[in-house]
């Protein structure tokens, strides 16, 4: 019983890390640029396919090809930013959210259906030679690839956090979040800051997608559900908090998993969402968010 | 029975005592000035009087009725209107519509929208914005916005008007014009509690002045008394005004 519960929690944390990683990308972009990029889930999908094709065509190990997936998404991010989102920088915040939502919606339609044309509607996933490998501890099994995904997600979050806290560019990013005009007057090129945060968000989505392709599976229509999940996690953690968002993801993952254990698998997501709403009712700024005004 | 009675008012934010045991009275028809250094709790006091904040302790009676704990949206119909230190116009509405909100929802509200529009035009004229009636508030300058906010508050036919740094950012000449306007308002039997940093203006207008420092009342009296009060000079006025 206890073992089964422990096993359940392990999987909850492992999936939660992916939720967190996906949401951090969205949160970073939203926090800095106030772009509500609803095609985030499609960027995740692109990351998944990049990793999948490298594996399928040239047998590149998905963990080794992660940098390639990142680069692919960085490039895609630059293209989407230059072509579409970059035009929204100067708008007022409300208009910005509104217009990026619209553009994101159009982009997600395009990406989803292009993926369908290129890669068919079939699901894809990556199974390596070591896919089933596990190590056991106290009777609980830890699947290797998932643990590796968790570690990668964790390292990325820590690195991102250090980057934002310690480096000048990171500080510039945080300054831009607060007031882009004042940031400009510090000599910060906010166009570059926006671009940077957008492509970093895309790259994080790409990594998440590649890890999803290894642990689960990908398909052209997967984007919407990941976008919705990321939105929920972003708000659960609290806007503007990177660590908070990641932890929020893990909390959601564990809640869903535990619900399956204690209650019923059919209400897994429902209980997660109810928890989310309860958090909001009692802490309207999310778990780790700072109260506005 | 005083018109407005503030007794032992306290408000803390976490460990910070923003307003600490403040007591004063306002008589009907008077203009009371509220001054003090930055962060001394002036705006907080106004927020407490208008229900925007709930006091930690203390009592406020308006026309003999306790108004602590009432929803802030009930203050205006009762006869208390206010302006904001950082102006808050309805940016997407026209100047006329801005004022109409006060007219429709304030004390003694207009019978119909049409009547409200008529009366609101008058209020705009009073503050000198008659020709801006159809402009969106977001297209007005800061000073125009301040006047608009005043017109909006006046449209609600208040008995007590709370003004928070209406003159900040005005040059002395403009402040003079504002003084004249306030005098005019007083003529219509509206009691005024005003926060202002322009010492000259506040001295010229106020019947009495209340001085706050670090949340506490440190002095109260006529303008002449306040100007000479060494403690007030020390923490607020500085040597130049002594």
């Amino acid at each position, binding site marked *: 019983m206890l073992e089964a519960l422990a096993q359940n929690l392990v*999987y909850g944390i492992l999936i939660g890390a992916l939720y967190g990683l996906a949401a951090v990308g969205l949160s970073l972009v939203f926090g800095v640029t106030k772009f509500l990029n609803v095609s985030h889930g499609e960027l995740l999908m692109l990351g998944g396919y990049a990793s999948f094709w490298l594996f399928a065509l040239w047998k590149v190990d998905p963990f080794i090809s992660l940098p390639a997936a990142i680069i692919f998404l960085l490039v895609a991010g630059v293209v989407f930013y230059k072509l579409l989102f970059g035009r929204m920088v100067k708008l007022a915040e409300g208009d910005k959210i509104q217009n990026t939502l619209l553009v994101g919606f159009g982009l997600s339609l395009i990406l989803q259906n292009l993926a369908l044309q290129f890669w068919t509607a079939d*699901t894809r996933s990556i199974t390596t030679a070591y896919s089933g490998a*596990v190590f056991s501890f106290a009777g609980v*099994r830890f699947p290797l690839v998932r643990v590796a995904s968790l570690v990668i997600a964790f390292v990325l979050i820590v690195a991102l956090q250090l980057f934002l806290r310690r480096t000048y560019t990171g500080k510039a990013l945080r300054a831009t979040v607060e007031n882009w005009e004042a940031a400009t007057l510090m000599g910060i090129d906010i166009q570059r800051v926006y671009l940077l945060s957008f492509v970093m968000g895309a790259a994080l989505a790409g990594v998440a997608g590649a890890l999803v392709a290894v642990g*689960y599976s*990908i398909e052209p229509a997967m984007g919407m*559900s990941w976008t919705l999940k990321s939105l929920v996690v972003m708000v659960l953690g609290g806007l503007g908090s990177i660590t908070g968002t990641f932890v929020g993801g893990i909390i959601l993952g564990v809640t*869903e998993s535990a619900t399956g254990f204690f209650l019923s698998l059919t209400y897994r997501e429902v209980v997660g969402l109810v928890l989310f709403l309860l958090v909001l009712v009692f802490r309207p700024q999310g778990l780790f968010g700072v109260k506005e005004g | 029975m005083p018109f407005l009675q503030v007794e032992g008012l306290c408000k803390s934010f976490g460990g910070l005592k923003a307003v600490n045991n403040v007591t004063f009275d306002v008589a009907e028809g008077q203009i009371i000035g509220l001054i003090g250094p930055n962060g001394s709790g002036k705006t907080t006091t106004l927020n407490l009087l208008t229900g925007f904040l709930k006091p930690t302790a203390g009592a406020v009676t308006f026309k003999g009725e306790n108004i602590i704990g009432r929803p802030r949206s009930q203050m205006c119909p009762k006869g208390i209107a206010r302006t904001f230190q950082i102006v808050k116009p309805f940016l997407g509405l026209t100047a006329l519509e801005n004022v109409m909100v006060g007219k429709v929802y304030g004390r003694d509200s207009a019978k119909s929208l049409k009547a409200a529009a008529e009366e609101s035009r008058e209020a705009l004229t009073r503050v000198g914005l008659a020709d801006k009636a159809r402009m969106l508030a977001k297209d007005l300058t800061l000073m125009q916005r301040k006047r608009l906010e005043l017109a909006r508050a006046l449209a609600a036919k208040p008995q007590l008007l709370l003004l928070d740094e209406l003159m900040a950012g005005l040059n002395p000449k403009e402040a003079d014009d504002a003084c004249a306007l306030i005098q005019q308002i007083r003529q219509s039997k509206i009691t005024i509690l005003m926060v202002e940093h322009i010492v000259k203006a506040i001295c010229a207008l106020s019947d009495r002045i209340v001085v706050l420092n670090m949340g506490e009342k440190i002095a109260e009296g006529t303008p002449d008394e306040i100007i000479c009060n060494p403690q007030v000079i020390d923490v607020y006025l500085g040597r130049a005004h002594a």
Partner: protein
Amino acid sequence: APAPTATPVPPTKAPEPTKAAVAPTTAAPTTAAPATTKPPEPTKAAAPPAPAYIEIGASIPLTGKFGSLGQQVRPGYAYAVKDINDAGGIYVKEYDKKIPLRLTVYDDESDPTKAVSKMETLFADNKVVAYLGGAASDMHVATTAIAEKNKVPYLGIAFALNAIHQKGYKYLFSPFPKSVQQGPDTFTILNALILDQSQRPLKVAIFQEKSDWGAEQGALWKENAVKNGYTVVVAEEYAVGTTNFVDLINKAKAAGAETLLALPNQPSGEALVKQMVELGWTPKFSLIIRAPENVTWSTNLGKNGDYVTIFPGWHNGMKFPGVDKLNAAYQAEFKRPADLLTGPSYACVQILAAAIEKAGTLDRDKIRDAIAATNMTTVIGPVTFNPDGTAKVLDPLIQWQNGKLEMVWPKDQATKPLAYPAPAFDRR
């Protein structure tokens, strides 16, 4: 390695169907021809002029969540239409000539509401004499009701839901094995293939999707397991879209279950198998309907995808007339023999063509009656219909073996014997 496959270019008139169909026949009944082409001859009551085409149509989920199913269904229709038209079309007695078929296909984006409007367009603008179905029960629910409303015969496959046939619909026909057939078949096939009783996987775990079909199939499995001497040791439900099966797998493992019966969609299916591998539970026999019908199942899961069985209604190894031709055409276009759902969809058109020919008219009700009386052999084998529109068809059991789909039942059709028991995942 799988390469991105090109999508088929159907011999349909997708681009400009509306204009083409509306122009000549706006005010005229379906069977009439444009009055302007020939002056009417008042004296002789001759056969009415024949329409240029027999219009049929389908709304198929080509994109969206059911896209992968729809993409298998469409080529079946397209090839069948092409084969019939290559032979000159269908002989219609009423006009005493062969008339080619014209198929119009719309994409409904896996959205039942859009499917409804597409079906209405096919009816109103294209004046179809029969509908072909899309894929997945979500979509059929909407589209079959439209067929009923418009009184247009409807032939659909790729849904095993039986309930939809119990609504008293007259125009719905489905030459596809239903849950009521698959429930008992599961155990009779197992018993027939594993003769040694002591070897049979008698302890059954049922992972049941929380959907009407899941409930229907789950109940039938439970009922028939007992009848056939099996015990259900675990029966659990999960919500559609679940990707975390840890608790179910742990329960099944703890209960010593030997058979796994489940009907997950993607992405649940692959997640289930991946977690079975990780948690070290290998049932001796597993029947996982739906997700493994995906052509990418095996490339995605590698050896872990083997030994899994399915009930897809067809296999390209069947020895019926026409299968070879279909495989050849498919091979030419997709570089592989026909997919599982392609055969049944091809059969739909075969059945329809035969019914039209038998009815000798394009009158929808007569065609409907002719379909109901179907008794023929198609690429999926012999087909007859029950009064509720379900069919008596073969229910082949297919198994993934060495990355290929092999037919293990019925015995006379089988391409390989059942691989049983499945070796533990870590010993493959």
